[in-house]
């Protein structure tokens, strides 16, 4: 079931990206995309026993993070709609529930307040509908934890960058509280200096007098610049000059690199026998990719069979009794053709050969 995590994620992110592109939080818009993608068909297929339940559990656990921060309000609305759609179109009874942890609950409540204040009636209605449908499990942790082995399987939450507001670390760092604090300290510092020296000593002017306004100004300029830049980047996404410029620069860098690696350093005479050789880049990459396949020990069954086969050959022909069971072997089974195992990742393993 874990193998479905990646494709499910891709599908959900595609839906959310399309929803983001509409720049709206209306349920009608969402519904249109949902129906266009025929998203409820994600549950379809001939079920293996209990597979449907496990799949429903998986998909709800994949989607629910989009309902929580750090995603933007719009994506969280999309996440809520998606949860609503998935919860209602699942094919198992009783329906699988959406897990909410205590820590996330206050974010959910804040989200609801925001939606009420902004008068997004459809958002509030859908959230309340989920609550009255008893669609939530109120849990300690967002996922059940059972000490699974650490494998890189995409279970680690990778945050989809496009759905998050552009980060603004400098702004986060320089808050009004912080500025006030600095102003206070600065004042204190100046006072201290005055009390120590009767007249101001120019050697002690190590810190600019108007520190706080300057700091504030710098942050403002920075955020303005950042905003302008994202704007302009969005505008000339395709044929903008900055884009071309950067690609030209990238090409230049690449050519420099290739030239510098293209010259094999000639070894000194004493090491002539171990002359360096050039390996084309592509090939080198390839050799890295092919990791030595783990050699599996044959299963206990095959090992035992092998052992008894060799023993049997030594003593007699076919007509041996198996030592570990007392009846004679009725018919020797023809060695079965080994079944090909299902390949979950065709792209990965069928690499350039």
């Amino acid at each position, binding site marked *: 079931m874990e193998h479905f995590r990646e494709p499910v994620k891709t*599908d959900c992110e595609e839906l959310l990206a399309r929803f983001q592109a509409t720049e709206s939080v209306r349920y009608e818009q969402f519904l249109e995309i949902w129906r266009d993608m025929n998203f*409820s068909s994600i549950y379809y297929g001939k079920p293996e026993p209990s597979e449907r339940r496990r799949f429903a559990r998986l998909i709800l656990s994949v989607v629910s993070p989009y309902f929580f921060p750090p995603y933007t309000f719009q994506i969280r609305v999309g996440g809520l709609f998606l949860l609503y759609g998935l919860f209602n179109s699942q094919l198992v009874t009783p329906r699988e*529930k959406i897990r909410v942890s*205590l820590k996330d609950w206050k974010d959910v409540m804040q989200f609801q307040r925001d939606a009420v204040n902004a008068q997004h009636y459809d958002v509030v209605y859908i959230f309340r509908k989920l609550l009255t449908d008893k669609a939530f499990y109120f849990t300690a942790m967002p996922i059940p934890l059972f000490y699974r082995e650490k494998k890189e399987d995409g279970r680690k939450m990778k945050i989809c960058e496009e759905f998050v507001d552009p980060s603004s670390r400098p702004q986060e760092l320089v808050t009004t509280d912080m500025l006030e604090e600095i102003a206070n300290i600065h004042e204190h510092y100046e006072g201290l200096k005055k009390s120590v020296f009767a007249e101001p000593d120019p050697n002690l002017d190590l810190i600019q007098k108007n520190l706080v306004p300057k700091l504030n100004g710098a942050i403002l300029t920075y955020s303005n610049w950042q905003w302008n830049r994202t704007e302009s980047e969005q505008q000339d996404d395709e044929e903008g000059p900055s884009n071309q410029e950067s690609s030209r620069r990238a090409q230049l860098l690449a050519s420099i690199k290739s030239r510098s690696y293209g010259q094999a350093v000639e070894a000194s005479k004493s090491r002539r026998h171990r002359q360096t050789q050039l390996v084309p880049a592509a090939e080198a990459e390839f050799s890295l990719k092919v990791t030595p396949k783990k050699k599996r020990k044959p299963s206990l069954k095959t090992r035992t069979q092998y052992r008894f086969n060799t023993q049997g050959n030594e003593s007699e022909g076919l007509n041996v009794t198996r030592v570990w069971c007392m009846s004679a072997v009725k018919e020797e089974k023809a060695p079965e053709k080994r079944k090909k195992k299902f390949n979950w990742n065709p792209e990965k393993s069928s690499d350039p050969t």
Partner: protein
Amino acid sequence: MAEGSVLMHEDEQHENVPAFEFVNVNSTEFHIGTFRDLWLEVLNPEVYSHCATAPEVEDVEFIEEMGIEPKTLEELKHICGADSLKRGHEDPDSLPSDPHLSTLKLRKRRQDYKETLTRDTLDRHEVYANELEMISVGKKPESPGDLIPEGEMVLTFNIMYPVLFQRFKRVRAFQTVHVLGSQRLTELRDAICCVSDLQVFGEFSSTPDMVPQFISKDHYKSAFFFFNGTFFNDTRFPECRDISETTREWARSRGFPHFRTAKMEDASFYDLRMKVGFPYYYTHQGDCEHVLILTDIRLVHQDDCLDVKLYPLITHKHRVVTRKCSVCHLYISRWITSSDALAPTDPCLFCDQCFRMFHYDDEGNKLGDFLAYAYVDPGTFN
């Protein structure tokens, strides 16, 4: 002073909101009872109650809170209804022939592959698993007194089997048990089934009909849980001994911090401080050691099994291939013999019938020289 106590209260609250200690591995430690109170504090009782609120009441509340016209609500209901999610009448069993969702592409490939295999559609284990599920799904108690109170916590434990057998070395065999927060630790202990509780000691080759019905569970009743620095000993019966003493003695002589002890039957899960996803310990029969993990804690839900009598509820069991009698290959072994001149191997397994036919004459006299012991198959719980 008052401020101080408020601060204390907030601290306590914060401490008992579980968060990840290591991401996706385990949570921080928290007090389960307080954690439950925190949930109940922030939730509207309707949200976790067992019965649904009437839709009319719900509507009126919504209109009042949002300050909208009833007409607007009707419109909302029309737009947001769940029926509009489906597109026409499609058969949920069949996949679209040309799917565009990547999940469906993978499932289609997998299904196409599955069709190339020849397999029985339902194997025996699936049947058992279904039976197990049928016992509990959506069960309502017969008498209202057995109804689980609203706002109760359900804890899920995974109990690993010890690596007694070589074949358990590569799989993590476990059983999953749901318990209620108000239940005692002893109730969990009684729900854990392990073959080592069922062993019969003694050699019975001369008196095969005299196998006593006492199993080790009745002889050796001591057991302990080790949760978070405390040994919880089972002291319900006079013959119970504190088997954690050896461990504590050892720890003391090695300079470990002091471990506390408590009585298992006095503690309910609400009294415990635990970490979700963290391995804990259960030992019984002297040295049969199980790792147990608290995988999940949540409020009880309307759709859960609501009969108190069915808890602790086993929801998953690892199924073991049973060892069959070496004569008939049909029945599960009941006897194990050693130094048996008649048997092909030493030790050798027999079912009850084959054992008697093979080792005794018609009058029930022992033939040949051998030692016979009762054998309990690890698959007995299947």
